[in-house]
């Protein structure tokens, strides 16, 4: 088959949105490679590492541009395998288990996707069409109104794959584990950017191109989104490890995108897609900053960090910008997209009162995100230096190599640009065909003028400063009642137990307890269930011949009953 034929088969489609996603994927590829040059230096199997990275990009581009569903599913499956292989570059003892977990969850949902595809095929062509029909399914030709059990099932099966890839609940648990164990560039590359792009992009396409959703399914999606936002961010708040904490945020932010898509109105969807792009920017930035910290301090344990802002000011600045973005503080990019999602949620008010819950969850989620990032900023960059940090700072002056700093800085600048000039972005053109037309904005958050306002406020503050004596400052020891702080290194709030008071609030404490015992982890619950079944089955195998004969007899009787019944 020649290349011409391939295109004539509608294997690929090139929409503006796909080009945009591809551009982002390319950008992240470049940044991650630059970053890896320094970060992965000296590790084993670097050739394989870069090979896998390139392969991932190629497959990702394939998925982005794929119009044919079968092709998409096949490429998608390979991506899962690459994820497994890339996690394998981690060096912690729990890496193999994490890789297995990711493979099982992603692979398992791939199987569900395949089943969903089969259902779509069944819905479109009915029984009796051959495999040729399966190969012909494509986004541009198929449109299924969601009505009746089968179509709902098909949608949910396909959506589950998208959610697992993006890391939304209930398939999220591989993301935090991976964030902790996999090398940082891999985390920044896959769950933080490419997988998010793919997952949410795919979810948007199936929700808007392939299926015509009714409001009930929309509510299901919105509920899922809200739960993801709240639950993941609550978990993030109490984490003790920087990377794991960021991993939970990677989950939480997906909630906003799912929520936005669930609204079903143009502005909400537009917000969701915009948020998707924004998220890839700031989350990669955050992960890369965490990598820079890990590189110089050899740990991401919050208890052993602190006071790094002085040692790595650039990383701190970028991290600070990115964390304000992710918390949705105006005028950064996270606020712009979240603001659109809020609008979208209020737009669904016609469908009943549930919008209040989603809106509250979304806004509260932002506050909680801010809270957990404040904890991070305190525990890692500000606050007091831990003995560990002091020791390293004394022995070697830790700096940030250019290869690490450049991608971080670029992403931080992007955070600001996308936020400040959000009102200049032609969403209608960029996000077609998913948006199906220009989104109706009931009025726009004029981010540029707001930025001017805030800058003017800062300027005013500077003027006040100049009136005062801030120019000439004097450095004195901190006041802790007259004691000498430097003589008492234990007098330091590490930030690990920052929010343990939250656990004291009754019902939340129980939930946290359950979460810590992994009652909400589909993988662990699945394993436990399998163990349970296995336990029953192995109980049946006691090695006595008589017992086996008895089972055989029982089987025969059951068969017989079934046949005559």
């Amino acid at each position, binding site marked *: 088959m020649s290349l011409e034929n391939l295109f004539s088969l509608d294997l690929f489609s090139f929409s503006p949105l796909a080009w945009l996603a591809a551009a982002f994927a390319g950008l992240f590829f470049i940044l991650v490679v630059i970053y890896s040059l320094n970060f992965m230096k000296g590790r084993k199997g670097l050739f394989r590492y870069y090979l896998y990275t390139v392969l991932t990009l190629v497959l990702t581009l394939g998925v982005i541009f794929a119009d044919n569903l079968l092709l998409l599913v096949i490429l998608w499956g390979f991506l899962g395998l690459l994820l497994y292989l890339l996690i394998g570059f981690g060096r912690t003892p729990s890496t193999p288990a994490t890789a297995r977990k990711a493979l099982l969850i992603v692979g398992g949902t791939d199987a569900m996707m395949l089943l969903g595809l089969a259902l779509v095929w069944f819905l479109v062509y009915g029984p009796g069409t051959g495999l040729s029909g399966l190969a012909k399914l494509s986004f541009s030709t198929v449109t299924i109104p969601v009505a009746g059990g089968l179509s709902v099932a098909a949608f949910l099966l396909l959506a589950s794959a998208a959610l697992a890839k993006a890391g939304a609940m209930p398939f999220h648990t591989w993301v935090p584990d991976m964030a902790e164990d996999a090398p940082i560039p891999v985390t920044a590359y896959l769950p933080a950017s490419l997988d998010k792009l793919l997952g949410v992009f795919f979810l948007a396409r199936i929700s808007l191109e392939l299926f015509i959703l009714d409001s009930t399914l929309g509510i299901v999606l919105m509920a899922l989104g809200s739960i993801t936002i709240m639950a993941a961010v609550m978990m993030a708040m109490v984490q003790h490890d920087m990377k794991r904490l960021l991993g939970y945020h990677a989950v939480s932010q997906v909630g906003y995108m799912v929520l936005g898509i669930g609204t079903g109105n143009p502005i909400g969807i537009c917000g969701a897609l915009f948020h998707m792009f924004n998220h890839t920017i700031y989350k990669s930035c955050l992960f890369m900053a965490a990598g820079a910290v890990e590189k110089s301090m050899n740990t991401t344990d919050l208890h052993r960090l602190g006071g790094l802002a002085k040692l790595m000011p650039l990383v701190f600045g970028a991290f600070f910008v990115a964390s304000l973005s992710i918390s949705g503080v105006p005028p950064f990019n996270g606020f712009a997209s979240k603001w659109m999602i809020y609008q979208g949620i209020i737009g669904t008010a016609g469908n009943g009162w549930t919008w209040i819950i989603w809106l509250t969850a979304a806004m509260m989620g932002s506050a909680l995100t801010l809270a957990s990032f404040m904890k991070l900023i305190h525990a890692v960059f500000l606050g007091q230096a831990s003995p560990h940090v002091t020791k390293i700072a004394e022995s070697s002056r830790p700096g940030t190599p250019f290869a690490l700093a450049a991608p971080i800085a670029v992403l931080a600048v992007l955070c600001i640009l996308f936020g400040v000039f959000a009102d200049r972005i032609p969403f209608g053109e960029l996000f077609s065909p998913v948006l199906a037309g220009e989104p109706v904005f009931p009025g726009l958050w004029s981010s540029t003028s707001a930025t001017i306002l805030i800058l003017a406020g800062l300027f005013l503050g500077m003027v006040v400063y100049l009136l005062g004596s801030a120019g000439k400052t*004097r450095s*004195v*020891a901190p*006041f802790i009642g*007259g*004691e000498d702080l430097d003589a008492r290194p234990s007098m330091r709030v590490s930030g690990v137990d920052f929010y343990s008071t939250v656990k004291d609030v009754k019902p939340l404490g129980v939930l946290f307890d359950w979460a810590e015992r992994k009652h909400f982890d589909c993988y662990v619950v699945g394993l436990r269930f399998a163990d349970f079944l296995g336990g029953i089955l192995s109980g049946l195998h006691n090695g006595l011949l008589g017992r086996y004969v008895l089972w055989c007899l029982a089987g025969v009787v059951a068969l017989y009953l079934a046949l005559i019944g």
Partner: protein
Amino acid sequence: MSLKLKALLKSPWVFHLSTGSCNNCDIETLDCLTPRFDVERFGILLAGSIKHADVLLVSGSCNRMSAEKLKTLYEQVPKPCLVVGIGTCTGSRGIFIDSYNCPVPLDKIIPVDAYIPGCPPKPEAIIAGVVKLIEKVGKG
């Protein structure tokens, strides 16, 4: 007199340091804030952190442990700051002059701008002392 100095005299926030006192001067200092004396009239507030303070009210006979702290704490006050010794102990160490744990008088540790004698000085005396000091500074 500059505007800033004028403002300083209209709003002196006091921080209160006890260096081994019998508590009486401290209690009388606190008493100044309460309804009968109400020094908030003059803009005087009790500061919690020494970095907010403009006036240090020192009481007691400076025993060894607190004298050490006194030096570090004086460093931590934003200047300009005034130091007022309250009670006879700060001036002459009173009955504690022979104590083995009170080796040096206050003015050998930090510079003192005014003493308010009395054992304890009455709240009226404390207020009068601080106001007089302010007047003195205001005149130059």
